[in-house]
C-alpha cells in the first residue's frame, strides 16, 4: 500500500499537496491539466524530488530518505528509458544487476523476459535498430525483471500512435496482473483512464485528490475536471 502522508511539494510558486493511500494491486490513472503537477507527484514518489513536508510510505516503510534506486519503484519516463549504446539484452539486464555482471541463470531470465514481451531473438539489437513499440517493450521487460511492487508510468507511450499505445497499456495491464504490482499512470487523456485504470487521481489546482472510481468520476465530474475536459487548452 502506497501512503502519501500530509505530502507538500513546494517549488518556487508551485505547490502540490497530497494526502491519501493507494491499495496494493490497484491500477490508477493520474489525470489533470499539463503543468498541474502529475509528473511532480511521480517524481517525488520515485525519489527525484524531495518533498517539502510529509512522508511517502510503502507498506508502512518511510521512503523519503532512500535514493531512487533503492525504492520499491520502477518508473518509466516520457523519453530516455533505454541507454542507446547498449543492446536490448543489456538494457534489460540492468534491471537485475546494475553492474551487468550476470550469471547464467540471470541471462536466462533476461531471455525469458524478452520472450514474454514478444521480442524473441531481438536481444542483440540496440535501441536505434528497434521500432518505437519494440523499444517500449524492452523497457517493460526490464520493469518486469526488476519486479518492483510499485510501477510509475510518466507517459512513456506518448510518442506512440493510438493503436500501439493501447497495445502497450494492455501489456502493462497483463504484466501488472501477473506480478501483482500497483500501477500509477500519468495521462491527460480520459480514454486512457477509462481503458486502463479503475481508479483515478485528479491532480489540479495544487492538489492531488485521493483515488476515485474512474467511471463515477467522469459520470459526475467535479468543477476542476469538467473545466479541464470542457476546455482542453486551459493550462492554468
Amino acid at each position, binding site marked *: 500500500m502506497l501512503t502519501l502522508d500530509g505530502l507538500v511539494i513546494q517549488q518556487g510558486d508551485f505547490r502540490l499537496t497530497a494526502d491519501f493511500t493507494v491499495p496494493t494491486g490497484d491500477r490508477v490513472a493520474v489525470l489533470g491539466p499539463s503543468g498541474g503537477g502529475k509528473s511532480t507527484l511521480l517524481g517525488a514518489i*520515485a*525519489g*527525484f*524530488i*524531495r518533498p517539502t513536508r510529509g512522508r511517502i510510505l510503502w507498506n508502512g516503510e518511510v521512503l523519503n530518505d532512500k*535514493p*531512487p*534506486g*533503492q525504492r520499491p*519503484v*520502477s*518508473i518509466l*519516463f516520457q523519453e*530516455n*528509458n*533505454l*541507454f*542507446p*549504446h*547498449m543492446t536490448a539484452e543489456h538494457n534489460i539486464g*540492468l*534491471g537485475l544487476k*546494475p*553492474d*551487468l555482471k550476470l550469471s547464467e541463470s540471470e541471462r536466462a531470465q533476461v531471455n525469458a523476459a524478452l520472450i514474454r514481451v514478444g521480442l524473441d531473438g531481438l536481444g542483440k539489437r*540496440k535501441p*536505434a535498430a528497434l521500432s518505437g513499440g519494440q523499444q517500449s517493450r524492452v523497457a517493460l521487460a526490464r520493469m518486469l525483471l*526488476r519486479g518492483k511492487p510499485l510501477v510509475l508510468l510518466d507517459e512513456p507511450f506518448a510518442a506512440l500512435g493510438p493503436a500501439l499505445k493501447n497495445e502497450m497499456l494492455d501489456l502493462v495491464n497483463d504484466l501488472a496482473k501477473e506480478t501483482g504490482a500497483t500501477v500509477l499512470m500519468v495521462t491527460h487523456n480520459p480514454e486512457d483512464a477509462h481503458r486502463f485504470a479503475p481508479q483515478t487521481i485528479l491532480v489540479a489546482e495544487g492538489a492531488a485528490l485521493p483515488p476515485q472510481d474512474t467511471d463515477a468520476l467522469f459520470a459526475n465530474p467535479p468543477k476542476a475536471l469538467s473545466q479541464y475536459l470542457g476546455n482542453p487548452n486551459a493550462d492554468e
Partner: protein
Amino acid sequence: MAKRALGINPSTLIGWLSVALVLVLTLGTLLAVFGRAEGASSIGPSDWVAVRFTLLQAGLSAAISVILAVPLARALARRRFMGRGLLIALMGAPFILPVIVAVLGLLAVFGRNGIASTVLVWAGFDPISIYGLGGVLLAHVFFNLPLATRLILQGWLAIPAERFRLAAELGFSCRAVARHLERPMLRAVLPGAFMVVFLICMTSFAVVLVLGGGPRATTVELAIYQAFRFDFDLSKAAQLAGIQFTLGALATVVALRVSAPMSAGSGLDRVVMRWDSSAIWLRVQDSIIMLAAALFLLAPLAAILVAGTGQVFRLPPQVWLSAERSLLVAMAAMTLTVLFSLTMALNVVRLRHRRRLSMTIEAIGYLTLAASPLVIGTGLFILLFPIANPVALALPVTAIVNAVMSLPFALRILKPAIMEVEQTYGSLADSLGLRGTARLRLLILPRIRGPLGFAAGLAAALSMGDLGVIALFAGPDQATLPMQLYRLMSAYRMAEAAGAALLLLILSFALFWMFDKGGRMNADT
C-alpha cells in the same frame, strides 16, 4: 533536487588529488619561486625592456590577429562552397601544430632565403628580415588568426537565423545588416577574442626563442630561460618568474572581466543564410580573403613538406631517439591529462548542486591557462633541487607539466559532455541504482567516447610538439623531438631540421588523428 548518489569511489578520490596537484604545480611552484627570489633585486633596465616588449608584442599580435579575423570570419559565415568544411578544419589545425615546426615553415617562406624574400630580391627590393618584432608578430598571427577567426565565427553563427530573415524581409542592405546585426555582435565578441590571443602571446616561448632574442626582442619568458640556462641565476629567474606571473594574473583578470570566449571546437559547420551579400563584388572580396588566408596558413606547411620529404629517412639516429622519447612523453602526458580531466569533470558534475564548490574545482582546472610553463618549470626546479637531480627528471617533469597545461582544454571538452549524459540519462541511471564504478563504466564512458578521444588526441599532440619546460631541464641526451629540432636549427643544419620538422608534424597529427578517430569509431548515438 535529490542528491545524485554516486558514492565515494576511486574516481572521486583521483579527482581531488588532481585538484591538489594542479594547485601544487601552479600556486606551489609560485610560492617556491617567490621564496627563492630573495636578495637584492637583480632586475635591471634590460628586464624592464623585456616587460615592455612582452606587452607590446602580445598587444600587437592580438590586434592584428583579431582585425584580420573579422573579414575572414564574415566570409566563412556567409559563403557556402566546396571545401568550406576543410578550410574551417584548417583553422583548427594550428592548435595542435608544433610551434617550432611552424616557425621553421615560416622561415622557409618569409626568411632571408625564403620564397618571399627571393621574389622580393628578384624584383629589386631588400629581402625580408624576419628576426625581431616582425617575425614574432608574423608567427603569432599565423597561430592566432585561425583561433580568432573561429571565436568570431562562433559569434556570427550565434546570431539567430531569424534575424537575418527579418533583415531580408525589411530589405536591409549589406551595410544595414552590418550596423544592426553584426557590429553589436562584434562589440561583444572582439574584446574577449583579443584577450584570449593576448594571453597566449604573453606566455608564448618557442616563437620568441627562435625569432626573438637580443636586447630589443626579448620577452620575460625568454629572459627567465636565459637567466636559468645561461647564467644559472636562480634568484633572478625567480624574480622574473614573479613578474611574468603578475602580468599573467593581471591579463587574466582583464580577460575574465570581458568574459573571454573559449573555442568549443565544434558546431561551426552551419552556414548563415544571407540575402544581403549576393553582390558579385562582395563574393569576389570574400573569395580573395579566404584564398589569401588559406595560402598564408598552408604555404609554411607546404614548405616543410617539400624540404623535409627527402630528408626524413636520412635523419641521424639521435633524431629518431628523440622522437621515441617524445612519443613516450606524449603518451604519459595524454594518460595523465585524461585521468585528471575526467576525474575533475566527474566531480564538477557530481557536485553541480553545490554551485560554489563545483565552480571552484572547475576554475582550478583552468588555472594553467594563465600560468606560464617556464614559471612552473622554474618553481619545480627549485622544489626538486634539494631532493633530486632535476635534470635526471627532465622527461617525467615535462610530461607532468604538459599534462596540466592541456588540462583546461580537456576539462572544457569533457565537462559539458558528462553534464549532458547526466542530464539525459541520470534519472534513468538513478532509478536503476546505477552508481559508482558501474555508472562510469556502463553509462558515462561509453557515452563520452567521442569527446574523450578528442581530448586525448589534443593532449597527446600538444605534448608531442611542446618546446617549453624541456628547454629548461634537458641535458644533452634528453632532448625531445622539438628540442632536437631546435638544436638542429641553431646549428644551421637546415636540411636535417626540415626532415625532423616533417617527422614531428606527422607524429603530432597522427597522434591526434588516432585518438580522435578511435573515440568516434562505432560510436552509437
